[in-house]
């Protein structure tokens, strides 16, 4: 027999990081994604604590201070740091309350499209010959129209307002979730672990929610972040067109609708709400990108 002697050489220490830590360290390295996350936290804070944070009531009109410039410009005052609009309302307060609205619309529309979307996608994937094709045809028809136009059509029919805006955007986002879920389900159904589960006697419901769905979460999460940012953009677009949230509610897009007339006189009325939209959507997209890069193992090694 061979003599195995203990070696004086140092025992190699294997350090295998846990998946969560790997994800976080990959995510953390992405400065942009981190910045996006921080900004998003800021937005959520604004949304949650708007009444406390905003210096004034967003609908309160200060007749003596119509179209005041921001504080750092000539004619501005420290009373209204970001100036006032054409009806004398404080821009800062309106922007803060606008954050609350945008986040609400984003969250609500995502929730109301994600859940039915996953359900429909699961159904379509698990029933590829009967329910499946019917559901997918329906989704294809919905996708035939560009999302904004479909949202415009829905809001045109149902009338403007906050609830209808959320409803319209939710409907418009639905097809992508259905498609995504169905595609993921079809991929997973072919895998060996599903066959193994079936052999072990797992019923369809258990298969659906316990075996298959958790493995489809990554692309769904990424799509959800994307939908969130498009929801904010679409809601703003609808507001701008006069079809969404109605004034005096301080939705950022609605604020821009009336701002058109003041391009020459009051740049802040035009720039600030749009900037708010841009920064928020940017932050969410950066976050989503970082999420995608950290969750997708293929991209990880191509550093």
């Amino acid at each position, binding site marked *: 027999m061979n003599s195995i002697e203990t070696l004086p050489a140092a025992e190699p220490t294997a350090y295998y990081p846990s998946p969560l830590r790997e994800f976080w360290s990959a995510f953390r390295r992405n400065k942009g994604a981190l910045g996006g996350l921080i900004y998003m936290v800021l937005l959520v804070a604004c949304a949650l604590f708007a009444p406390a944070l905003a210096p004034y009531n967003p609908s309160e009109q200060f007749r003596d201070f119509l179209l005041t410039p921001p504080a750092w410009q000539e004619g501005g005052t420290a009373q209204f740091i970001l100036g006032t609009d054409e009806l004398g309302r404080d821009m800062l307060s309106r922007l803060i309350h606008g954050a609350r609205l945008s986040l609400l619309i984003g969250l609500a529309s995502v929730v109301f499209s994600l859940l039915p979307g996953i359900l429909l996608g699961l159904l379509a994937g698990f029933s590829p010959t009967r329910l499946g094709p019917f559901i997918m*045809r*329906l989704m*294809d*028809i919905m996708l*035939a*129209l*560009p*999302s*904004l*136009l479909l949202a*415009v*059509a*829905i809001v*045109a*029919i*149902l*009338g403007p307002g906050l609830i209808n805006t959320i409803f319209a955007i939710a409907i418009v986002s639905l097809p992508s979730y259905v498609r995504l879920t169905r595609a993921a389900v079809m991929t997973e159904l072919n895998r060996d672990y599903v066959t193994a589960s079936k052999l072990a006697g797992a019923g369809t419901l258990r298969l659906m929610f316990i075996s298959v769905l958790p493995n489809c979460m990554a692309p769904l999460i990424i799509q959800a972040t994307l939908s969130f*940012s498009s929801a904010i*953009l679409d809601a*703003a*677009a609808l507001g*701008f*067109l*006069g*079809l969404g949230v109605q004034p005096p509610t301080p939705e950022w*897009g609605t604020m*821009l609708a009336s*701002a*058109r007339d003041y*391009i*020459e006189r009051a*740049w802040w009325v*035009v*720039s600030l*709400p*749009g900037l708010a*939209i*841009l920064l928020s*959507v*940017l932050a969410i*997209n*950066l976050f989503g*990108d970082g999420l995608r890069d950290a969750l997708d193992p293929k991209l990880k090694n*191509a550093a």
Partner: protein
Amino acid sequence: MLSFIARRVGLLIPTFFGITLLTFALIRMIPGDPVEVMMGERKVDPEMHAQAMERLGLNKPLYLQYFDYIGNLAQGDLGESLRTRTSVWKEFTTLFPATLELAFAALIIAGTLGLLAGVVAALKRGSLFDHGVMGVSLVGYSMPIFWWGLILIMFFSVGLGWTPVSGRIDLLYDVPPVTGFMLIDTLLSEEEGAFLDALHHMILPAVVLATIPLAVIARMTRSAMLEVLREDYVRTARAKGLSPSRVVFVHGLRNALIPVLTVFGLQIGTLLAGAVLTETIFSWPGIGKWLIESIGARDYPVVQNGILLVACLVILVNFTVDILYGLANPRIRHQR
């Protein structure tokens, strides 16, 4: 290839009917009295009301109304605009070239710049240029384009006075509409300086409209190129001692263009949606502005069939892109 095309054509038909069902249903869902909705008038006296119901077929069961609708469509009767009393079809064909021209210009800008930026970014991966392209394109598709338009107007039109604020051409010029495409018509007309003026008017809206597709195309091209450059056959090409540019453009780009083509097609939809917003800001007389105004004015025949027409357009374009994709991909091209 034939079966591929046949399948796609086969999908067209049910999708088309689905759309008509959708638009039909949408209009029926509008709250209020159907006669008032369809005729745009209020307080119609009972006799006229009954006559209108008869004439519009509104007392028939729904499915028969649907058949009437389809029947009318088949004969080319898309109804009449309540505001202008002109046929919806006529209004559409008059206004469509303006949108088409704008979309075309935007697509050219987005396509060429996007492809170029994407390829160079992929080649210089990790460089400042790459980060710059990615950053700019990220901002590009995070941007609310109606705001972007306003900012550009504020800057270039009002601030610098370089471009006009709205419209397709200065009212001074009298350009007879031959094709409906202002750039062509101005060249055909004898007005001096009309062409340049038309171009002047088109720059800002085209840039605004091109912004999102540009961003998406650049990103997509970059990632497609990066993926293709990792493929085994690119390694083989380099092992053959071919020059780097040949490896990238002949072997790499040719295959990267295939997924980019699908993105191109998807952007048509974005362009149409964007057109709605852009035309509103720049008072560009196209179908986007037409639809929005009709919605605001409750001009329901226009809304119903205008949306139908736009949807059909998008479906047709997607169909064409699908076929082109099949042609470009040798695996599909050679299928039975």
